[in-house]
């Protein structure tokens, strides 16, 4: 049989937000906000720092570090201040909690 994979395919991303944070980083790089080696250097340092505290298994914890490093980098670049991120995170949480199940969730900007 040709062209057939007998390997069981693995999910590409284990959770939707893994894909979102990955795509966001790739997009920011492609739009010129930062060079990939600069990102990789920070991410590598972040993994190393977290890996000292506990062994990372390459799954959820890997993308948790990814997100943490991206948040730090965006703050450093003046693109997203931590307080602003927290404000919008809370706004999204409130929006989910206020939206009846099954309906699309909209964020109502407080500004």
């Amino acid at each position, binding site marked *: 049989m040709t062209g057939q994979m007998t390997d069981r395919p693995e999910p590409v991303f284990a959770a939707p937000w893994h894909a979102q944070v990955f795509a966001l980083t790739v997009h920011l790089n492609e739009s010129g906000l930062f060079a990939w080696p600069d990102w990789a250097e920070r991410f590598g340092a972040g993994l190393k720092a977290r890996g000292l505290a506990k062994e990372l298994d390459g799954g959820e914890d890997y993308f948790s570090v990814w997100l943490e490093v991206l948040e730090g980098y965006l703050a450093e670049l003046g693109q997203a201040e931590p307080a602003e991120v927290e404000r919008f995170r809370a706004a999204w*949480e409130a929006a989910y909690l206020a939206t009846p199940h099954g309906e699309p969730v909209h964020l109502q900007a407080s500004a």
Partner: protein
Amino acid sequence: MVRFMPHDHHHDHRHGAEDHAHALLPPDPALRVKALETILTAKGVIDPAALDVIIDTYETKIGPRNGAEVVARAWADPDFHARLMEDATPVVADLGFFGRQGEHIVAVENTAEVHNMVVCTLCSCYPWPLLGIPPAWYKSDAYRSRAVREPRKVLADFGVTLPEGKAVRVWDSTAEIRYLVIPERPAGTEGWDVERLAALVTRDSMIGTGLARVPEDAA
């Protein structure tokens, strides 16, 4: 008032008393990613539609089949093989497999004397255009630290035992250079076309933690 549409509809199921009354609350990191997207979209730094295109590309269009095609062509076509080994980046770009981050692709070939294996000890640099998103084990601390220190033991964990005397060469990827292992062509595949050969090339064989399938297993 500004309204933002969420990008995904897969929400974390939480089973609590108040469940189903409202939209399912995504996990905290998902909300933080949404917060970043909201801020950067409002500033015009990102285009939400571009994010969806990137996700779609990685989920459906990019995967180890790309790399398998490259390996199969290298096996079947001596001229392609020579060009690939000399400078893989333009050769794979000709097939439509571009490094999005401008990285160089280097092909390293397994022979009777040497087995190549790839790791990224820094983070998870990986030839995305050829292999897609790396598996969790490639990103794990265990693999990243052990691949260099004890590659034969790691190979044994993957069920690969190499003949005594075969050297193992471990390549540490960087943000600039990504490696593609060209596994040894299995015996009994003389005269096979590219499509048939590509079916023997597994993802792990292109990372070096596996070997190409033998024809009997692929049948």
